[in-house]
C-alpha cells in the first residue's frame, strides 16, 4: 500500500521541485518503486528538473479528465530503476484539478507504488490544497529566512486543519522540516537564521539541512536530480535526508563552516 508524501512550503522558490526530484530519486535508489507527481498545473517544472520534458505525451490533467490512461501518462526515468514521473499540463491551470480525479489517480498509484511524492505548487490555494489533502507525510521545505519560516508556519496550520486526515480525525500527517539553501557562513555572520532558530519557531522534527550549492543550478540545467551528483554537498545532504526519512540515524552535515585547510584555501575549492 503506497505512502503519499507531499513536498510543500507555502513560500515559492524555496526548493520544492528540486527536493521532490532529489527525494523521489533517493527513494528509488533505495529500491522502492516511486512516482513523483507535478501538481503545479500551468507552471510545470518537474519534467525539466527530471530531464523528461521531451517525452511528455499525456499528463496528469489528461488522466483526470479521462482523456488518457494512467500508464500512458507515466514516464519511466531513464537513469534510475523504479522511478516514474507524472507530469502535469502546461496549457491548463489549477482549476482543472478535482478532488475526485486526484483521489482516483492516487488510489490507483497506491496499488503499484511504494512511495508517491507530490510536488506542491506555492501558495495555500487550490493547487497546494489538492497536493496536501491526501498526504500521509509532509516535508516542509523552508529557507532559513523570516518570510519562508512564516509561510511554512502557515502551511503547517493548513495541514493541521485541511488535510483529509485532519478532517476525518485520523492520525495526523507526519511533519518533517527540510531546511534548504543553508549557508553556514552567512549564519555565522548573523545574516541568516540558524537551524535552532527555525526549529524553535516551527517546532517540527528536522529531516535535513541542504546547503546552498551551485550544483543545484548545474543539475537543473542538464535535467538531472542533484542527488545523482554525488560529489556535491547538496546531493550528499539529500542522500542523508532520505536515510533519516527511512528511519536511519544520520548525523547532520554541512551545518557549520568547514575548517579550510591551507591547500583548499589556496585552491579556493567550492562545494
Amino acid at each position, binding site marked *: 500500500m503506497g505512502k503519499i508524501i507531499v513536498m510543500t512550503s507555502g513560500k515559492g522558490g524555496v526548493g520544492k521541485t528540486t527536493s521532490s526530484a532529489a527525494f523521489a530519486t533517493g527513494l528509488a535508489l533505495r529500491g522502492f518503486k516511486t512516482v513523483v507527481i507535478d501538481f503545479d498545473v500551468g507552471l510545470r517544472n518537474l519534467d525539466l528538473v527530471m530531464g523528461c520534458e521531451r517525452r511528455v505525451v499525456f499528463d496528469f490533467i489528461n488522466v483526470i479528465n479521462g482523456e488518457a490512461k494512467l500508464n500512458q501518462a507515466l514516464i519511466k526515468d531513464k537513469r534510475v530503476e523504479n522511478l516514474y514521473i507524472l507530469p502535469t499540463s502546461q496549457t491548463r491551470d489549477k482549476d482543472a484539478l478535482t478532488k475526485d480525479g486526484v483521489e482516483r489517480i492516487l488510489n490507483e498509484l497506491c496499488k503499484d507504488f511504494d512511495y508517491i511524492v507530490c510536488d506542491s505548487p506555492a501558495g495555500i490555494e487550490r493547487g497546494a490544497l489538492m497536493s496536501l489533502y491526501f498526504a500521509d507525510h509532509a516535508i516542509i521545505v523552508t529557507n532559513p529566512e523570516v518570510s519562508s519560516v512564516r509561510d511554512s508556519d502557515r502551511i503547517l*496550520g493548513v495541514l493541521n486543519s485541511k488535510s483529509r486526515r485532519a478532517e476525518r480525525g485520523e492520525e495526523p500527517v507526519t511533519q518533517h522540516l527540510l531546511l534548504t539553501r543553508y549557508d553556514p557562513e552567512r549564519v555565522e555572520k548573523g545574516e541568516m537564521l540558524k537551524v535552532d532558530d527555525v526549529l524553535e519557531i516551527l517546532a517540527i522534527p528536522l529531516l535535513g539541512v541542504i546547503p546552498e550549492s551551485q550544483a543545484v543550478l548545474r543539475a537543473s540545467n542538464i535535467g538531472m536530480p542533484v542527488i545523482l551528483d554525488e560529489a556535491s554537498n547538496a546531493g550528499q545532504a539529500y542522500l542523508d535526508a532520505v536515510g533519516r526519512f527511512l528511519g536511519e540515524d544520520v548525523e547532520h552535515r554541512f551545518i557549520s563552516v568547514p575548517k579550510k585547510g591551507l591547500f583548499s584555501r589556496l585552491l579556493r575549492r567550492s562545494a
Partner: protein
Amino acid sequence: MVAVSSANQVAERDAPFQFRGNSFTMMVLKVVDPASPNFFSLLGSKVRQAPNFFRHAPVVLDFDELPEGAAGFDITAFALKVREQNLLPIGFVGGPRAVQEAALAIGLVPMPAGRAARLDVVRAPENTAVAPPAPPPEPAYRPALVVNEPVRSGTQIYAEKCDLIITAAVSHGAEVLADGNIHIYGALRGRALAGISGDAGARIFCQSLEAELVSICGLYRVSEDMDESVVKKPVQIRLSEGYLHIQPL
C-alpha cells in the same frame, strides 16, 4: 410613467419630512357633570391611585353626555383644571356645537369617534416599597480551554466565556482571544486579546513577549510601542485605570 414614479421616489428620499400612518390608544375622559363640586377632587383621587399611569397621559374629552344647555361651561378653565391633575387634554369628541367650537378655539383636536378599548389601569401596590431584585446566581465554574499544540500562523482560537491556556508558542500571524484570561506557557508572537466581552480585569500572561499586538477589553498596544525592557521576557499584562500595564513576571 416609470420616469415619473422614480422622480417621485427621488423626491421622497430627499424630503425633509415623511407622512406615515400610525395608531395610538388614547384615554377618553367622559365628562358627565362638570358642574359637580367634587369633580376635580374625585378626578384627583382617581389619578393618585396610579400616579405613574396617569402622569402626562393624553386624554380625549368626551362631551357626549354633557347636560343640555350646560350654561357657562368654561372649557378653558376646565381644560386648565384637568391639566392640574397631570392629564393632558389633547382632543375632544361629541358635545353640542357651541362646546365643540369653543374646544376647537382653545386648540383641542376634534377626534373621530374611535373604538372603545379596554383600559387596564395599573393599581399601585399597597406596599410601595420595591423589593430588591434577587441576587444573580453564582456563575458556574467554567473550566479553561486548554491548547497543547503550537498555534500556527493563520489560526484563530477563541475561548468563549472562559480562560485560555496554551502550553506552546503562538506563531506570528496567529490570533488567540478569550473572554477571560490568556495564559501562554511559551512565546507569544501573534496577537492576544483578553476580556473581549467586556471584562477589564482580564489579564494576559506569557513566557516571552514577542507579540504583534496585545489587547485587554478593547484597549490595545502594538509591538512597536512595547518597551525594550519587556520584549522577549516573561510578562503579565493587565488593564489598570484605563492604561495597559506590561510587567515582568
